[in-house]
């Protein structure tokens, strides 16, 4: 508020006062600081590097990006204090929510940005693709993800989704020399636009049924509504579920995911598995659990249960038959999406909390795993098949060990974060009475464990092929690998602080089941 009011005082003679009937919306700049830092970081980076051009050293863009992400993460700390003191607030005329949920999601997005910036710093020179636009798009899409996660209005949510998605389409297609990258970009774009239209139609129907796009108003409307079988509202729910189902890569709306993950530049695949999934799941949780949860959970829970079961089963079984490791990880991300859907399905505080924890854990696992694929792929990313991982342990024992830890974590082995993440979501689903979905989830975990162990066995028990080019682990990638393993193990052994934090984050947001 201070910015505009100082300006107003200085220019009082020149500027017209707003008409008496018009209430100037108060914009709490401090409250949206993390998002502002990411967005302004993106715009300023674009301006600075385009004006200075070649005079900008090559390290500038990645350092800038990481600094912006860290700054945005630090800006969360005072806001968290404010949230702890005063509880959830809604800012900018009811459009943006300042609550634990959005703050937690912001931190996860910032972590994903740090990882992708570290990986891109080595990847882009290797592929001769260096240009600062990559980092601009990363920051922009991060801002979109944060917008989605903190949206208190369906239209803000949609705009955030589009900022996130459009930037992701471009990054997917931005590898100039790989045809697969551009193909993946086109597929992602067409199906992404298709799903956006579905989501938007769902928003329109919801608006028609409830008279508002504001989540709080929708929640209040539903709490007072006596009509339980409103066709318009059910249609809106279904369309929104389809739209967001596409974005999270849930079966049967998953067809784009393997192609896009395989075709996209590998660091970007890791980023999509982390930040893009987080944005979509945050939207799903905010809309379905928070706004539609109290009054309408009976209506959408069966649909989400079907999505969860299909994602779990298809993700696990399709991954086994793959020979391309990047594609395996893509299918495993569909399996993971099924697990996170368990947290959504629970429609409880425990479920939301476990979904947030899972998203944080998966951000670490995905960033690290795709970092390994980046390194093993070598220049041009031609070496992605399982064959190329033969004997990795004898050539690069450290890299093989890191990959093993990350894969075991994805499989859900105790002492890693993957185990706890799976445990939390399954517990939350059982508590909400979805025992059978939880059983399916645990069975598919066994199936996908087979796939992860197959990669591990290939690395350790097969002979390295002769004449493969040397494998180099650049410094920044090494840092990213180290961070991901430390994160996976630390969160797996001492989960207390973070899971408590997730617990506090959602405690006041999710209304308990009646």
């Amino acid at each position, binding site marked *: 508020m201070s910015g505009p009011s100082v300006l107003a005082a200085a220019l009082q003679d020149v500027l017209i006062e707003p008409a008496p009937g018009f209430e100037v919306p108060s914009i709490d700049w401090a409250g949206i600081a993390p998002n502002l830092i990411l967005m302004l970081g993106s715009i300023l980076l674009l301006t600075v590097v385009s004006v200075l051009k070649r005079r900008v050293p090559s390290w500038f863009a990645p350092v800038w990006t990481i600094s912006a992400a860290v700054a945005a993460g630090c800006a969360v700390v005072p806001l968290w204090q404010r949230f702890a003191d005063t509880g959830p607030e809604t800012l900018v005329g009811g459009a943006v929510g300042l609550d634990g949920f959005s703050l937690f999601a912001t931190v996860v997005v910032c972590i994903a940005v740090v990882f992708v910036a570290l990986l891109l710093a080595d990847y882009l020179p290797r592929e001769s693709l260096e240009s600062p636009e990559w980092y601009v798009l990363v920051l922009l899409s991060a801002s979109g993800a944060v917008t989605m996660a903190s949206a208190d209005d369906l239209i803000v949510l949609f705009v955030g989704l*589009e900022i996130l998605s459009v930037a992701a389409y*471009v990054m997917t297609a931005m590898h100039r020399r790989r045809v*697969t990258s*551009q193909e993946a970009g086109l597929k992602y774009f067409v199906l992404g*636009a298709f799903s*956006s239209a579905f989501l938007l139609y769902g928003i329109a129907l919801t608006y028609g049924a409830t008279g508002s*796009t504001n989540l709080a108003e929708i929640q209040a409307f539903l709490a007072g509504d006596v009509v339980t079988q409103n066709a318009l509202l059910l249609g809106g729910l279904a369309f929104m579920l389809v739209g967001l189902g596409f974005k999270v890569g849930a079966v049967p709306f998953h067809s784009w995911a393997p192609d896009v993950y395989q075709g996209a530049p590998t660091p970007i695949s890791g980023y999509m598995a982390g930040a893009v999934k987080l944005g979509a799941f945050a939207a799903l949780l905010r809309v379905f659990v928070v706004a539609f949860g109290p009054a309408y959970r009976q209506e959408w829970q069966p649909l989400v249960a079907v999505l969860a079961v299909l994602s779990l089963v298809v993700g696990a079984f399709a991954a086994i038959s793959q020979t391309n490791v990047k594609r395996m990880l893509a299918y495993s991300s569909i399996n993971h999406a099924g697990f996170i859907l368990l947290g959504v399905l629970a429609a409880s505080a425990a479920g939301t909390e476990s979904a947030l924890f899972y998203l944080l854990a998966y951000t670490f696992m995905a960033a690290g795993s795709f970092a390994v694929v980046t390194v093993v792929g070598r220049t041009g990313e031609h070496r992605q098949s399982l064959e190329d991982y033969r004997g990795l342990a004898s050539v690069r024992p450290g890299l093989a060990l890191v990959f093993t830890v990350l894969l075991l974590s994805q499989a859900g082995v105790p002492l890693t974060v993957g185990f706890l993440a799976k445990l939390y979501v399954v517990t939350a689903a059982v508590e909400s009475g979805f025992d059978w979905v939880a059983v399916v989830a645990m069975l598919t975990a066994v199936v996908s464990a087979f796939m992860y162990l197959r990669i591990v066995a290939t690395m350790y028990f097969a002979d390295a092929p002769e004449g493969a080019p040397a494998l180099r682990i650049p410094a920044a990638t090494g840092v990213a690998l180290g961070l991901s393993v430390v994160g996976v193990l630390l969160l797996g052994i001492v989960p207390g602080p973070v899971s408590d934090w997730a617990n506090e984050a959602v405690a006041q947001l999710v209304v308990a089941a009646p």
Partner: protein
Amino acid sequence: MFTFGDSWYLVLAAIIFAIGAVGLIVRRNPLVMFMCVELMLNAVNLTFVAFGNLLGDVGGQTVVFFVLVVAAAEVVVGLAIIVAIMRRRAEANADDVSLLRG
């Protein structure tokens, strides 16, 4: 006198949306697929305006601005991707884009 009620606009919008959705699934030319996406988004715009009128709420109309701008941004990016692919091959056809499968 016969008048068109608000529900007519909603039905029209639903039909346009369905045409767009089906068109996107059955057509193979990326440019036509983009047009179908536009059709779907504009059907949503019509729905918003009709509901806004029905509810006497100006919010339904302001949404249209955002949808318009987002649609334009999407199409600009999509066309850029198509041009990037077209520079490699003579004709852009979604069936030709098939290196990725499995």
